[in-house]
């Protein structure tokens, strides 16, 4: 018998649900109940606690009583499949993290920064089927990344600071870790107030301890501006240990394209009352 609360047991993958029964996943703050009926699958979703709440229970058969505020969805099938496929994936927008304290990278220097990013979840009826349900494990706050309130990009805020030491990054079931190697080839120092991680371009890999990693990301800054070239490795960095490929990226980056990845806090010039 599987222990549904084993922290090493991955919450993704294939899970059997007998006809007429309900299974519940507790992934950090997310509660996801999936009920299988003859011709429909019912999904109930709610959250408890904050974005960094710990805890993991996989396909728990214990009955639960969702709160009134829970989201509820019904999905029709000719015959419902005996098992469902849960897949983790990165956020659908870039994720912005900022160092705990202002961080500067001198000219011709490089450093590795670890960023914890929020995850999303897809439910499929078969491995090769299109997803019929997708949700965030915890909806991150919106944030704006750009030089002004007129120009920029809508992103998610990371909730956790970008760190130079991996030990300081929270490793949780509802989040993935990305190692970003920043190489400053410019003759000017890089003032890193905010870092935009292009999450939709990243794939997911599972480490031996059951946690998820993105492949190693290299940001190469050649000029004196806030743009960098994005290079993606095939695998996560060595710190992740032995990993297994879990899910592809949402989008493919344009080869050689410059991404605006380093940003500063917006000044207060727009904040007239």
């Amino acid at each position: 018998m599987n222990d549904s609360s084993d922290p090493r047991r991955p919450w993704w993958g294939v899970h059997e649900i007998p006809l007429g029964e309900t299974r519940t996943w507790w992934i950090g703050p997310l509660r996801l109940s999936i009920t299988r009926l003859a011709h429909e699958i019912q999904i109930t979703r709610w959250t408890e606690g904050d974005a960094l709440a710990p805890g993991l229970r996989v396909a728990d058969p214990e009955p639960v009583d969702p709160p009134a505020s829970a989201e509820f969805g019904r999905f029709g099938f000719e015959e419902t499949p005996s098992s469902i496929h849960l897949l983790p994936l990165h956020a659908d927008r870039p994720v912005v993290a900022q160092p705990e304290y202002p961080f500067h990278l001198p000219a011709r220097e490089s450093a590795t920064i670890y960023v914890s990013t929020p995850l999303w979840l897809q439910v499929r009826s078969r491995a090769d089927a299109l997803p019929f349900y997708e949700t965030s494990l915890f909806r991150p706050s919106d944030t704006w990344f750009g030089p002004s309130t007129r120009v920029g990009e809508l992103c998610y805020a990371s909730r956790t600071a970008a760190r130079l030491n991996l030990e300081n990054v929270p490793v949780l079931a509802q989040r993935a870790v990305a190692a970003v190697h920043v190489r400053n080839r410019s003759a000017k120092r890089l003032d890193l107030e905010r870092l935009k991680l292009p999450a939709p371009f990243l794939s997911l890999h599972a480490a031996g301890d059951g946690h998820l990693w993105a492949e190693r990301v290299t940001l190469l800054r050649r000029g004196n501006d806030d743009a960098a070239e994005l290079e993606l490795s095939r695998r996560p960095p060595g710190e992740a240990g032995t990993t297994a490929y879990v899910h592809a990226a949402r989008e493919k980056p344009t080869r050689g394209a410059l991404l605006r990845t380093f940003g500063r806090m917006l000044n207060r010039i727009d904040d007239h009352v």
Partner: protein
Amino acid sequence: MFDMLPSLDFAALIDTLHVESVFRAAVVLILGIVLTRLVGRGVGRMVEVRLSAQEGMVTRRLITWVLGTLIVVTALNELGFDLRVLLGAAGVLTVALGFASQTSASNLISGLFLMAERPFVVGDYIQVDDRTGEVLSIDLLSVKLRTFDNLLVRVPNEDIIKKHIVNLTHFPIRRVDLKLRVAYGSDMDHVREILARVADDTPLCMTEPEPLFVFLRMGESGIEFQYSIWGTRDNYLDLLNSMYTAVEAALRAEGIEVPLPKRSVVGARADEPVRLDTHPATRD
């Protein structure tokens, strides 16, 4: 009698020439129409990449009208009409029409300016006077809006040019200003902490640009301040409603009083006149 025969040849000659003119005019007209259509389509394809659908349509119409006028003038010339007379008549007609259609002409020119200036595009939400709605079309004479209660409002272009227009959806994010009030004696640092926590717990509230706290005044009923947060333009209403509700609940939960407007009234006896104190006028 036979002396008249040469005049018969002359008439036949005139007739021949007239037929030839008609033929030439017809050829000009047919070729002109084909050419106008071809040019219209070609220009349409070129401009649809760079301009909006509305501007593309106006450009195509302008080209059709200009080329059409040129072709008709050329055809009339071939038929032997004296264009100086026509132009003279057209001048008089233009003056008469101009007086009669000042408003339309003004709207037309305003429409062209609007298309060049582009303060809004189809699909934007704008505010004109007390009307707010989605822009359905920007035509040569008017702009058509769909209001939130699903009414069609036609605003003449001349009015749009003259008046202040607020485009609510031009920029991707916008600020939501919450006007709040707490009772005198409240711990304002604690109030600010509560507001920051509520903003942090609301995913639609952006972390950057950061929320802004502005003290407004010591009001009649309490300390008045503004808490400004940012969200995407699509989430404006959701953010406004959810934040007011959440802030009010959080303040009450923390024991911070949100006061109602208060005014102290001191009563006087009914049988006595209301006493007024007079003060001497201040002299410079």
